[in-house]
C-alpha cells in the first residue's frame, strides 16, 4: 500500500495517521451527530407510544402479523455479517487486503447486531414479558419451547453478538495500547484501563495470535449459522413462499451481499474525510466490488430457483402467491428488488466502475435498498396472499412503525459516529504487519 505520493508509510506514519482520526471532531461532525440524534429521539418517542397504546399503533393486521419490524430486523442481521466474515474468513484465507478495512467492518457488525436485536422487542405484543424466551428457573416451572425458531434466534443472535464483541475488543487491545502511549492526561488514564495494560511482550503476542486464530475458526461457522437460523424463522413456517429449503444459503448470501455494500457505504467517506488513501486504496474497493458482484450473481441464481420451484412444484398456493407478488398491489416492490439486487450490480463487471468511487457508492446504496425490499417482499406480500382468501389484505405502514424503522438507522449511525472518534477505525497493528519490517541490512 502506498500513499498519494507513492511512498510506503513507515510504522510511525501508521500510528500518526490513524491516531490523527481521533482528534477532537469538527463542527460538521457535531452537526451530523445532532441530526442523527434528533431522528433517534423521534424513533424512541414512536416506540414509547406503541408500548403505551399497543401494537395497533403499528400498521400490522391480519394476515400481515409481521411486517416492517421483522423486515428491518432481518436487514440489520444481514448487514451484521460482512464484518465477521471479513475479519474471520478472510483472516483464515490470509487475504492481506482485509487489514485496513476489517476494523470498520467489525464495528459495523457489532452495531448492526445491536440494532437488529432491538426489533424482536419492538415487535413483541408484550415486550415486557420478552424475558420469558430466556431459559431461567422460575416458580412456574416453565421453560421456553426449544422447538420454536424464535428461541433458536435468541440463542443464535446473542451468541453472535457476544462473539463478535469479544473478537472486536480483542482485536482492539494492541491499538488501544498504542493510543494510550500517544495520548496524555485523562485520556491516557482511560485508554490505559481499556488496554488492560497491554505491552506487546512476546508472551502476550504468542497467546494472542493463537487465540485470534481460534476466534476466527469459531466465528466462521457461526456467521454462516446465524443467518441460516434467521432464515428458518420463515423456512420452518407453512406460508407459501416461505416454506423452502433454499432459504438458508439464500439468506446467507444476501446477508454477505448487503453487508459488503454497507461496508463500502461506510469506508468510502472515511477514507475521503481522513485522507486514508494510503491505507484504503483502490485495490480494496476493487476487491469489495468483485465480492458484491459475485454475491449478487449468486443471489440472482437463488431468485431464479425461487421462481422456478414455485412454478415447477405445481403447487397452487406457491404459484398464486408468486404471481400475486409480481403483478398485484406490491409489484413495484417486487421489481424494485430485482432491479437493485440483480441488475444494478452488473455494472461492477467493469473495472472502472469498481474503482470509480461515486458509482460504487450509488451501487451500494441501491443494493441496500434492494435488500431491504427483498425481506419486505418475503414478509408483507408473502403473508398478504397466503392460503386463506377470506383474510387476504393489504398492509399500510403507519407513522409509528415508519418512525421506528427510520429511528433504527439513526441508532446505528449514532453508535458508529461515536465509535470512529474514540477508537481507531483502521487497525494500527495489522496495517503495520502488512508493511515490510524495518531491517538494517538486506538479508543474505
Amino acid at each position: 500500500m502506498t500513499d498519494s505520493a507513492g511512498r510506503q508509510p513507515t510504522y510511525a506514519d501508521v500510528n500518526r495517521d490513524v491516531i490523527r482520526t481521533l482528534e477532537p471532531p469538527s463542527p460538521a461532525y457535531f452537526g451530523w451527530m445532532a441530526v442523527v440524534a434528533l431522528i433517534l429521539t423521534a424513533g424512541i418517542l414512536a416506540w414509547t407510544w406503541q408500548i403505551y397504546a399497543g401494537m395497533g399503533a403499528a400498521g400490522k393486521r391480519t394476515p400481515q402479523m409481521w411486517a416492517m419490524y421483522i423486515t428491518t430486523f432481518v436487514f440489520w442481521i444481514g448487514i451484521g455479517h460482512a464484518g465477521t466474515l471479513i475479519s474471520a474468513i478472510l483472516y483464515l484465507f490470509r487475504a492481506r487486503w482485509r487489514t485496513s478495512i476489517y476494523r470498520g467492518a467489525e464495528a459495523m457488525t457489532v452495531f448492526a447486531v445491536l440494532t437488529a436485536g432491538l426489533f424482536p422487542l419492538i415487535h413483541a405484543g408484550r415486550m415486557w414479558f420478552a424475558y420469558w424466551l430466556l431459559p431461567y428457573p422460575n416458580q412456574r416451572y416453565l421453560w421456553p419451547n426449544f422447538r420454536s425458531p424464535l428461541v433458536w434466534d435468541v440463542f443464535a443472535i446473542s451468541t453472535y453478538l457476544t462473539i463478535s464483541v469479544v473478537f472486536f475488543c480483542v482485536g482492539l487491545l494492541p491499538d488501544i495500547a498504542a493510543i494510550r502511549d500517544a495520548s496524555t492526561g485523562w485520556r491516557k488514564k482511560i485508554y490505559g484501563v481499556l488496554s488492560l495494560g497491554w505491552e506487546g511482550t512476546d508472551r502476550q503476542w504468542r497467546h494472542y495470535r493463537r487465540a485470534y486464530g481460534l476466534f476466527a475458526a469459531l466465528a466462521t461457522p457461526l456467521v454462516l449459522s446465524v443467518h441460516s437460523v434467521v432464515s428458518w424463522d420463515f423456512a420452518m413456517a407453512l406460508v407459501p413462499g416461505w416454506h423452502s429449503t433454499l432459504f438458508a444459503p439464500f439468506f446467507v448470501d444476501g446477508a454477505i451481499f448487503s453487508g459488503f455494500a454497507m461496508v463500502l457505504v461506510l469506508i468510502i467517506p472515511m477514507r475521503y474525510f481522513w485522507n486514508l488513501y494510503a491505507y484504503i486504496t483502490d485495490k480494496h474497493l476493487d476487491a469489495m466490488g468483485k465480492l458484491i458482484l459475485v454475491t449478487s450473481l449468486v443471489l440472482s441464481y437463488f431468485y431464479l430457483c425461487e421462481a422456478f420451484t414455485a412454478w415447477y412444484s405445481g403447487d397452487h398456493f406457491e404459484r398464486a402467491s408468486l404471481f400475486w407478488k409480481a403483478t398485484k398491489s406490491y409489484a413495484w416492490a417486487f421489481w424494485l428488488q430485482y432491479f437493485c439486487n440483480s441488475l444494478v450490480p452488473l455494472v461492477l463487471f467493469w473495472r472502472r466502475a469498481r474503482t470509480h468511487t461515486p458509482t460504487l457508492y450509488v451501487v451500494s446504496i441501491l443494493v441496500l435498498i434492494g435488500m431491504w425490499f427483498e425481506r419486505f417482499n418475503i414478509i408483507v406480500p408473502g403473508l398478504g396472499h397466503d392460503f386463506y382468501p377470506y383474510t387476504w389484505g393489504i398492509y399500510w405502514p403507519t407513522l409509528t412503525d415508519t418512525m421506528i424503522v427510520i429511528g433504527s438507522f439513526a441508532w446505528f449511525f449514532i453508535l458508529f459516529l461515536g465509535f470512529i472518534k474514540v477508537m481507531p477505525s483502521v487497525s494500527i497493528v495489522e496495517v503495520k504487519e502488512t508493511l515490510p519490517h524495518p531491517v538494517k541490512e538486506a538479508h543474505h
Partner: protein
Amino acid sequence: MRTKVGVGVLGLTLLAAALFLVLSTRGQAAGPAQPIAFNHQVHADQYKIDCQYCHADARRSEYAGIPSVSRCMGCHKITAADRPEVQKLAGFFNKNEPIPWVRIFKVPEFVYFPHKAHVRANVKCQTCHGPIEKMAVVEARTGQNLANDLLNLVGLARSSTPLTMGWCVECHTTMNAKEKTKAPLECVTCHH
C-alpha cells in the same frame, strides 16, 4: 496478593446477597387488620366448628364462599352478643351492609381455582391455607416474588411459595405419583 483481596471481597458480597435473599423469603407476614377481629382459633379449634359450616360453598362451587352476615348472626344473636367485636357484626347486620373483609389468600391473576374439585379429592383446607385453626389472625405469605426466583436461579430455593403455579404443579405431580390421583396438569384446566 491484590487479586486475593479482590476475590475475597467479591465472595463476601455474594454471600451477603444470598443471605439477604434467603432471609427475605423466610419469616411470616403479619396478617392485615380486618374490619372485625375474627378469631379462627376460637371457632375452628376451640369449638371445632367445621370449616365448611361457614365456608359452605367450597364443596359445590368454584369459591369457598365467605359466610353471609346473616349466617354469622345465626349464632351470634345470642352467643357472645355482648362482645364488642360481635356487636360490630350486629352493627353491619342492622345497617344491612356486607362486611368488607380484606382478602388474604389469592391465586395469581388469570387462574381458575375451583375449591369444589379439591374438596371432592379430599384435600385438607390446611394443605393450601396453612394451620388456619391455630391462627388468631389469619396471615399468609403467598404469590411469586423475585427473591424466590433468584434463589431458584442459584439453586438455593426451598419449594416455591404457596399459591404460585410451581407450587400447584408440584402438588399435582407428587399426588399423581404417590396417590395415583388424576390431578390434571393441563394448562387449560386453570387458564381459560
